[in-house]
């Protein structure tokens, strides 16, 4: 089950690419899978099993906070975006 994951420039330093693919049936499993492929990935966006509050994850453009958070189911062909806050101006 390949899920497309898009990351912003800051996270691209770890993934080496803007779009990567991962496996998992929930967002949580997907993140674990990505962490195995790109060590250090999870620590950039999570702490103590929770998403950092300045990081949002969108499943097909809907914030997972309003779905089932990290337990949100994902399936083949879904697109997940990981968006940390930016402050630059």
């Amino acid at each position, binding site marked *: 089950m390949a899920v497309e994951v898009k990351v912003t*420039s800051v996270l691209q330093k770890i993934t080496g690419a803007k779009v990567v693919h991962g496996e998992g049936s929930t967002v949580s499993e997907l993140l674990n899978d990505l962490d195995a492929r790109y060590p250090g990935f999870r620590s950039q966006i999570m702490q103590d099993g929770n998403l950092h509050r300045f990081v949002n994850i969108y499943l097909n453009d809907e914030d997972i906070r309003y779905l089932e958070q990290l337990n949100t189911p994902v399936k083949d062909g879904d697109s997940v975006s990981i968006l940390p806050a930016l402050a630059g101006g």
Partner: protein
Amino acid sequence: MPVSVYIPTPFRRLTGNRQHVEADGKNVGEVLAHLESQFPGFRQLVFGNGEEIPAHINIYVNKQEISALDGIATAVKDGDEVAVIPALAGGAGMPEPAPLQPVGALTPEQVNRYSRHIIMPQVGPAGQRKIMESSVLIIGAGGLGSPIAVYLALAGIGRIGIVDFDTVDISNLQRQILHQNEDVGKPKALSAKETIHAYNPDVEVVTYEMPITSENSMEIIRPWDYVINGADNFAARYLVNDTCYFLKKPLIDGSILLFDGQVTVYLPDQGCYRCLYPAPPPPGMVPSCAEAGVLGALCGTVGTIQATEVLKLILGVGDSLHGRLLLYDALAMEVRQVRIRKDPNCVLCGEHPTVTELIDYDAWCGGAFGHTNEEEQKAADAARAARERAVSAMNA
């Protein structure tokens, strides 16, 4: 061990951006003289052209103001802290713009100047008058603030406010179109005002050459119709968001880094920045533009979107970005949107708010405006190292 002196932000251009410096002296007068010898021009900033400390400058020795002690003869000893604090907020120096007057018939010159607006059905003379009767406050005259201010000036916004306490640095010129080569060293708010007037003398410009803080943000923001965020740190973003919420001001928010930008519109009581990002990152976790860099042209794209959004709100046309977060990826040249909802659990605008007044944003974001002095120093060092690398590469 000499005396430690706290240098206020507007004076730090003399001290290499340092917030604390050391000086010798047996009293305040001697300390000021030693500061002048270390940082020529310091005396002028404190005293102006006079011999006495002016009313708008307070000097504290160990937190006591010297006029309650012995004035500049106040004795100091090793290890004391002397603080120089200009009275910026709430007293002398705080602009108080009066309400804008309605615009009557446009003059022939205005009809000509704004003809490309007026001939559009969505604008017309009535729409152009609405633009000219609006006031917009821009937080920051930097990467985002620059294109915002320029396009709003060209559009004929009645009054533009600029909040920026910094001076123009050569590293700004890579992206900040309000400022040009000859403006290096000038206060950014002043440079902004000059550029706006060079484009359109009809625009009234109000400058706030001061940091926006919990002590002054309500007073600064209150007289304005719209607020546009071009701040460069998290503490200022949360401060502006909270103030706009309490004052019921529409806020057009934008942020950038590297090749990415995010833009949205917050309307009163319809969600806020904290709904999107409930808490700031710990200091150092999300780099600033000084640390990670930003494509100069990206500022133009994102800032211009912000200017477009405020014009749409003024004219009452089109679909606002309210409720949507626009994501701009310049590398892929891809624009996407995600949905933003008003969070019923939001601590500011939700059903059971716990933030009912402005807080200490410095402390909450971990350090002065999201950057500790050490981090500011690291960022400045990183910028200098990057410059040196560029120069070596050029000379290789």
